[in-house]
């Protein structure tokens, strides 16, 4: 047992439901007790979805415990099949069905006999995988199912499209800024003269999955979702894939160069160098921003980065490499992907943190006292308590992160959005100077902030007044450094003299 009240990644069935409900005309039936269909609320609320979420529950209740749920599950599947004629029904196990150990495979087979659409059991184990892993797995499972089905029927199309084309794999419902990213990627592909063969799973029809192999290559923008499918397609059809997340100027260029390599290997003879150059220097504002004096003021400022693997890695690289910001630590809750994360991010931060314990993450933020945090909604709230600004860069997120306006994180427009996010998260440079010069304009009492920062030092009146004049966002650090200085020298009361001595000694 583990004591917990916050988790970064949801349970496995959420991943399966995200995939199923992203497809067009696919229905998921959860094998779960009453009240487990909270996914419908999240999709309806967070995505502000206009349509009914295609998820229903085959309710596990007392009668089911006594008699087994076979008949009920089969009935529910065939009923849904006739009510809404979905192309595919995905029976979704939950933690409850994991323990009941009923033969869901068998139920699916029975239901399939009486259903016009296809019926499938999602192959995910609640106790082994989380939301993200389950989503990755379910997407692969569905793709494989329809490829094999087409192969059996002998109508698997052969050959590639005449012009270079791509499948974008991994865009899904409830994904962080996924819809905007998808629009931006489509635009980028159009600029590169690459046709979109298919986007999966969002908005895709399962009947068209058999056409996936017609694309020249696959693009997997997110580390968490789509790699299994890309690997399957590579093993099965020798389809190359590009899994460099085009987030940030340098990574976008790297992604495009990789695409160029992949296409040229198939005889496309494309050269994207000029496009990259043009975009980087004159179209996207990001490169210019990093050269501007605004960004100069951010040089060496401390930041911490935390999120899913994709966004935390990309963000750490952008901050360090493109903006000269000092990333003290970068971390992720994707513990299962630790090796890749370390390898990607190690040279861009002082320390790598792999943890899904929000309490620990909060403490580490408090200790470092960064000038800005880039994290999930949880880190935003830590920032609020510590009075440190936070830019949200990764799920889990709230409704305000499902923006109505166009806010991609990927591609060249994404680089602009990220610049705004970063710049607005730090206190504005000039404001910063003015506050220092004029001693600050806030007269709040010094609060001992910091989740794990306690202090019992005695400050005399003058020193306290001076401390109050230090701008809020550095006050905690100055206070702590001064106290450490005093403690090291066995000074019991902090006076103005001690205060200045400390400043001179440690540069507080």
């Amino acid at each position, binding site marked *: *047992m583990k*004591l917990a009240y*916050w988790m970064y990644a*949801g349970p496995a069935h959420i991943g399966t439901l995200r995939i199923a409900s992203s497809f067009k005309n696919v229905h998921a039936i959860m094998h779960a007790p009453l009240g487990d269909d909270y996914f419908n609320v999240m999709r309806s609320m967070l995505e502000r979805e206009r349509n009914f979420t295609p998820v229903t529950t085959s*309710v596990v*209740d007392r009668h089911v415990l006594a008699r087994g749920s076979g008949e009920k599950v089969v009935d529910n599947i065939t009923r849904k099949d006739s009510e809404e004629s979905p192309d595919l029904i995905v029976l979704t196990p939950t933690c409850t069905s994991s323990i009941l150990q009923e033969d869901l495979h068998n139920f699916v087979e029975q239901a399939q006999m009486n259903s016009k659409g296809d019926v499938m059991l999602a192959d995910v184990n609640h106790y082994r995988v989380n939301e993200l892993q389950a989503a990755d797995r379910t997407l692969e499972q569905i793709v494989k199912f329809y490829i094999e089905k087409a192969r059996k029927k002998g109508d698997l199309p052969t050959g590639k499209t005449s012009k270079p084309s791509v499948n974008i794999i991994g865009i899904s419902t409830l994904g962080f800024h996924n819809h905007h990213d998808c629009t931006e990627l489509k635009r980028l592909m159009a600029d590169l003269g690459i046709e979109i063969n298919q986007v999966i799973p969002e908005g895709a029809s399962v009947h068209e999955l058999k056409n996936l192999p017609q694309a020249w290559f696959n693009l997997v923008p997110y580390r968490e979702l789509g790699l299994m499918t890309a690997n399957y397609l590579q093993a099965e059809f020798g389809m190359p894939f590009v899994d460099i997340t085009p987030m940030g100027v340098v990574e976008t260029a790297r992604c495009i160069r990789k695409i160029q390599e992949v296409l040229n290997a198939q005889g496309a003879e494309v050269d994207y160098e000029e496009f990259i150059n043009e975009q980087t220097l004159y179209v996207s504002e990001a490169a210019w921003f990093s050269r501007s004096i605004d960004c100069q003021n951010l040089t060496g400022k401390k930041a911490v980065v935390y999120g899913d693997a994709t966004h935390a890695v990309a963000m750490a690289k952008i901050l360090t490499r493109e903006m000269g910001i000092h990333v003290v630590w970068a971390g992720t809750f994707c513990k299962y992907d630790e090796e890749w994360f370390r390898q990607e991010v190690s040279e861009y931060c002082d320390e790598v943190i792999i943890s899904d314990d929000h309490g620990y993450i909060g403490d580490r933020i408090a200790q470092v006292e960064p000038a800005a945090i880039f994290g999930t909604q949880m880190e935003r709230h830590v920032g609020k308590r510590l009075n440190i600004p936070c830019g949200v860069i990764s799920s889990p997120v709230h409704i305000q992160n499902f923006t109505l306006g166009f806010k991609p994180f990927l591609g060249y427009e994404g680089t602009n959005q990220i610049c705004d996010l970063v710049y607005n998260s730090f206190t504005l440079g000039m404001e910063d100077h003015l506050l220092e010069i004029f001693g600050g304009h806030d007269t709040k009492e010094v609060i001992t902030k910091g989740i794990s920062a306690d202090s019992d030092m005695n400050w005399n009146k003058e020193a306290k007044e001076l401390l109050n004049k230090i701008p809020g966002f550095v006050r905690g650090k100055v206070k702590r450094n001064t106290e450490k200085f005093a403690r090291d020298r066995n000074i019991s009361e902090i006076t103005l003299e001690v205060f200045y001595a400390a400043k001179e000694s440690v540069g507080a």
Partner: protein
Amino acid sequence: MTMTAEPQALSFECETGNYHTFCPISCVAWLYQKIEDSFFLVIGTKTCGYFLQNAMGVMIFAEPRYAMAELEEGDISAQLNDYEELKRLCLQIKRDRNPSVIVWIGTCTTEIIKMDLEGLAPKLEAEIGIPIVVARANGLDYAFTQGEDTVLAAMAARCPDKAPEEEKKERNAITSLLNFGKKKEEVEAEEEGYANHPPLVMFGSLPDPVVTNLTMELKKQGIKVSGWLPAKRFTELPVIAEGYYVCGVNPFLSRTATTLMRRRKCKLIGAPFPIGPDGTRAWIEKICSVMGVTPKGLAEREQQIWESMEDYLKLIRGKSVFFMGDNLLEVSLARFLVRCGMTVQEIGIPYMDQRYQAAELELLKQTCIDMGVPLPKIIEKPDNYNQVERIYELNPDLVITGMAHANPLEARGINTKWSVEFTFAQMHGFSNARDILELVTRPLRRNDNLKNLGWDKLVREEAKV
């Protein structure tokens, strides 16, 4: 299973139970706030945790006094010892929070693996010295607000049967709250204002302002409320002795009522619930009649409230409402809305205890007759899919529903109100009646503002397959 009898009887039907509602563990959200010295430990899986985390929104960031004991694979396969694991976590809670009670919420998983929480609790309680109350608020057996019912039924067993002499004064927290700042003589003088009636204890968790309000409402009639289950603190649970009278304030508390009657030998006052001015008046009148007090000034009081709500009533008179059903407040709300002049097309409800709700059902029937509207169908364990079909057919002016259906219905031009808001709003008593109408009329007022824009149907017509 239809039981339609003569035309002037309510009809009860039961559908498939395929409906959306909250898991009953959600009761920790309001109970941990109500019982200030408690700590709620939900013993379940990531699924439970994910629900709580998302359903409670920003509350989660406020270091709430609840947590998950998240079961791992070793717990399920009994490789780990339940007792040792729970002891470790409860000691940690004791060290970090030092609560006066730890409430264990049993979930579907603990039911299925048959974890003997009721057996483990007394042993662990003796070992760590903190009371442990066990409530099985799981989705196998219960819906949403019934979670509170399971917790209060378990708490009922913890109420002392007589107050220790020296504590007697402090234990009655509500009286001391009401008497706060008054001199001793004044208090004694006020004590005389009460009729001589047997002790009366209320049950049902309500925000403190509402508790005070209802207590004062009864005080005006000379009825003294000796205690309230739950109280602000676990250490202030009311004395409940054999022969006491008890009365519920919410329609979903049937297990608590049963426990108080059977286990604590109390007498239950079966009254309609104090929701809406009509309900509040009927509630007080019923209590008065049982206590042998003649109520005074209630008709005028009720009339005043109705008059003060006229601006809202104008908006809903003659309109129709459809309850999809998810929180068991449906019958009381429907009865109130009929009195407001609405027609109720359907009352969906997760579970219908016809004995506990008898007085409320009777009042609903009477109200429909008085207002000259047809008696609504009550659909127990509704089927949301069928309900949506009926909604398309009936085209109600307002659908009261869960969040899973609200946005899709709005996009199809149907006004909706999110049902969960009724659970969290302060809506009991005379003074809060207006707040119910504020909620009910909000979609109508909002959509009134938009009606000339032609933005009613915001989904493309789907081709029928």
